[in-house]
């Protein structure tokens, strides 16, 4: 058996949870906040140190281009976007994180395949879509678009075309939709890096952002609404479907439904 190893995605999720809790303003007292902000900054610095010069992250801490993966990059972009909006982060660190986020977004734009989406490993292009990964990537990009000072990418022709192609080719997700990293790509730098991507919750989150996107054409917005309405028809089935299961999957489902509720 392998010895334990660090997964960078855990760092991104923990950082995002901390930032969300800090923003809620009711978790820590003023005196506790000093300690907490130091801790949050520590996690952020740690995450930034694991970014590859390409702009991407790998799931492990051995930074090298062959280890670059889409999911690790997407959750890092999400956490960095949260950091940019957080009062817990100092200006200098925000600048560093903003630049880092922009580089990661550029990597995501470069590695989007029209009519397909993103591969978990761009060096190993597949044919079956990673629907959950695609929607979560779109969600993270939409979040990053809202960060003033680091969102010039939203005017790039390549990005506008990416969004149009994404909307044109996207399909409604069923509750049970999920994809996994193929066995041929489990080994990252000698470590097993399995990941499962849920389609339904991240499509709810992604579509909640897209439906408010002013850069979409009216036909594209109609498509977003149509797909969302089809998915909404299934939402009543969720409690029964999730009567039992793994906590991570249920947590992601709550996140998707909550983002949708907040947007409606």
């Amino acid at each position: 058996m392998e010895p334990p190893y660090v997964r960078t995605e855990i760092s991104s999720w923990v950082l995002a949870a901390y930032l969300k809790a800090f923003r809620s303003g009711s978790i820590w007292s003023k005196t506790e906040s000093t300690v907490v902000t130091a801790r949050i900054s520590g996690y952020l610095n740690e995450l930034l140190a694991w970014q590859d010069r390409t702009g991407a992250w790998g799931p492990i801490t051995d930074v090298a281009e062959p280890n670059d993966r889409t999911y690790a990059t997407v959750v890092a972009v999400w956490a960095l976007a949260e950091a940019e909006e957080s009062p817990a982060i100092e200006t200098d660190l925000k600048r560093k994180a903003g630049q880092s986020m922009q580089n990661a977004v550029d990597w995501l734009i470069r590695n989007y395949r029209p009519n397909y989406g993103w591969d978990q490993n761009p060096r190993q292009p597949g044919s079956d879509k990673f629907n959950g990964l695609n929607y979560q990537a779109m969600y993270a990009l939409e979040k990053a678009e809202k960060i003033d000072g680091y969102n010039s990418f939203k005017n790039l022709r390549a990005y506008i075309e990416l969004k149009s192609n994404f909307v044109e080719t996207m399909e409604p997700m069923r509750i049970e939709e999920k994809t996994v990293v193929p066995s041929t790509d489990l080994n990252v730098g000698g470590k097993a890096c399995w990941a499962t991507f849920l389609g339904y919750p991240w499509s709810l989150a992604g579509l909640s952002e897209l439906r408010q996107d002013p850069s979409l054409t009216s036909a594209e917005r109609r498509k977003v609404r149509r797909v969302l309405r089809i998915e909404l028809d299934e939402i009543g089935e969720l409690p029964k479907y999730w009567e039992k299961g793994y906590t991570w999957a249920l947590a992601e489902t709550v996140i998707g439904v909550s983002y949708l509720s907040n947007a409606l």
Partner: protein
Amino acid sequence: MELPKAVNPQVDDNIQDAGLRIIAGHAEKLQAETPTQPLQTVPKAKNASGLVNPEELQRLSTRAILGGGLFLILSNIATILELMQDGFKALGIVFSIIPQQIPSWMIVTAIMIAVVAGNLLLGRFLYTRFTRHAISTHKVGAAVFLMLLGSVLILANASSVARLRPNLPRVTNELVSNLLRATAASQDGGFRTDYGSPTSREDAWTTAQSVQALLSRAHIHIKSGFVLVSITWIEITLDLVGLQIQWNLPMSALKSRPGCWLPT
């Protein structure tokens, strides 16, 4: 020759009973034989020569039946929509034509207005027919009965409308209560990997995702102390083992399957 009583004075333009139609036809035949006794009490069902026109009678009774049917459909529109919900799912396009900007309360209000109006029309329609020959006491009884019937129909339809709407707060509540089961047996605030199994292990990644989920929801109030305890659990775990994934977990218990060993 004496005319049958059924077509004599009380027959009006809304005859809907098939038996009456036969009798009316028979009466016309008799009328032809006795032209000196025209059917003066069937004014709208007479032809130019003052005779009963069976086609006209059929048209009027069809109109009455259609009217009654329409009122019945209108007064039960919510229940009918609920029954047809599966069909609508297959034809997702039906609901997609309703613009997203229209709030669901407006749609619900429109449906309930149709239900109440339909029940009033149906009540009036039935009352007219029930009480034509009734004495005053029976008229009161019929009115009370129809009011009760209308109330039952309106309540049944209101309940159907509630089930028709994708009730996001209710769905979120049920999902969150399941999610909280993951921490029910926990002494120190960590979330277990399987919320249905009190013996599964607590895990930092799962806890971070769960905290994020709890803080994302729009409709449920989670005590800040609860979030603090969970985050403190993450801190302690990370201080002990860093961002390492946990071992010896069942397959797929985490978003990443750490138990999967690969020869390198």
